[in-house]
C-alpha cells in the first residue's frame, strides 16, 4: 500500500485527513510514508534552500538537516499548521542557522529588507520631469504578443529566467521562488518568512521587475 498526498492537502493552514494519516504512519516508522513525503517535498525544498544559500552543496546539506529535523520533530508535530508549512519552517531555520554559522547572516538579518530600492524600469525609458508628458513612456516596452509560444518555452529562455532569479538579493529570490515558481499563496509565504503582506508584495514586485527586465533584454536582443 502506498500513501499519497493529494495536491489539495499540501496547502492550506491545517493538515488534511491524509496528511494526518501520513504523520501517524511516519511516527510508527513507516518507510512508505517517509518516501511519500520525500517524493513530494524534496525537490521544492532544494529549490527553496537554494533561494536561501548560495551553493548547491550547502543547499543539499541544509535539506538533509531539514529531513533529520522532520524525523526528530514528527512526534511533536501538533498540526497547528499544515505539514508543508511546518516542514518549510524547519528548512528556514536550518538555512538561517547555516547562514549564521558561515558568517553570512547579513542576508537573513532582516528578511523584510527589500534588498534594493531601484525603480522597476530604467528611468531613461520615461519622458523626463519638466517636459510635456513627463513620466510617460519615451520608449515603449516591446509587444510580446507576436512572439511564438515556443520562445517562452525554450530551454534557453528558461535558463535566462533561472539566471535572473539566481542573482536577485536573497529575500527577493526566496519570495519569487515560493510565489511564482512553487506557486505558494501569499499568506503562506508571509507566515513562513514572518513578514507582512505589504512587505511580501514589495519583495515580489522588485523581483518580478528584475526578472522581466532580464527576459526583455534577452527577447529583444537575442
Amino acid at each position: 500500500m502506498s500513501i499519497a498526498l493529494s495536491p489539495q492537502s499540501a496547502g492550506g493552514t491545517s493538515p488534511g485527513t491524509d496528511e494526518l494519516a501520513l504523520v501517524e504512519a511516519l511516527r510508527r516508522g513507516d518507510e512508505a510514508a517517509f518516501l511519500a513525503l520525500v517524493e513530494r517535498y524534496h525537490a521544492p525544498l532544494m529549490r527553496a534552500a537554494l533561494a536561501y544559500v548560495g551553493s548547491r552543496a550547502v543547499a543539499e546539506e541544509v535539506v538533509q538537516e531539514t529531513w533529520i529535523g522532520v524525523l526528530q520533530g514528527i512526534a511533536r508535530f501538533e498540526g497547528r499548521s499544515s505539514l508543508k508549512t511546518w516542514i518549510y519552517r524547519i528548512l528556514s531555520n536550518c538555512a538561517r542557522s547555516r547562514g549564521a554559522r558561515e558568517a553570512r547572516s547579513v542576508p537573513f538579518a532582516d528578511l523584510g529588507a527589500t534588498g534594493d530600492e531601484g525603480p522597476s524600469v530604467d528611468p531613461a525609458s520615461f519622458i523626463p520631469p519638466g517636459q510635456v508628458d513627463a513620466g510617460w513612456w519615451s520608449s515603449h516596452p516591446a509587444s510580446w504578443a507576436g512572439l511564438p509560444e515556443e520562445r517562452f518555452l525554450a530551454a534557453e529562455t528558461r535558463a535566462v529566467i533561472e539566471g535572473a532569479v539566481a542573482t536577485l538579493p536573497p529575500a527577493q529570490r526566496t519570495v519569487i521562488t515560493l510565489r511564482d515558481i512553487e506557486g505558494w499563496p501569499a499568506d503562506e509565504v508571509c507566515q513562513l518568512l514572518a513578514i507582512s503582506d505589504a512587505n511580501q508584495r514589495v519583495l515580489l514586485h522588485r523581483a518580478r521587475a528584475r526578472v522581466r527586465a532580464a527576459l526583455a533584454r534577452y527577447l529583444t536582443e537575442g
Partner: protein
Amino acid sequence: MDQHNTGDELTCRELVELVTDYLEQALPAPERARFDAHLAACEGCRDYLDQIRRTIGVLGRLDPATLTDDERTRLIALFRGWRAGAGR
C-alpha cells in the same frame, strides 16, 4: 497641450510600480480605477503588464524538479538510520 496631463492621472512611470499590487488585488478601489483608466489609454503600459504576466507564466513553468535516484537512496538510508536509532 497633450491630452495625457490632466492632473490626477497616473503616469506610466507610476503605473509600473503599482503592477504587483494590481495583480495581487491589493489596490484600493480608487487607485484601481485610475490604473484601469490609464491602461485603457496606454498601449505601452498594456504591453508592460503583458510582459509581467508572461514573465510570471514562464516562472510558473520552470522545471518541476523531481527526486533523483541518488537522492532517494540517500534519504532512505537516512530514514533507516533514524528508525534504527529511535528503536523502532
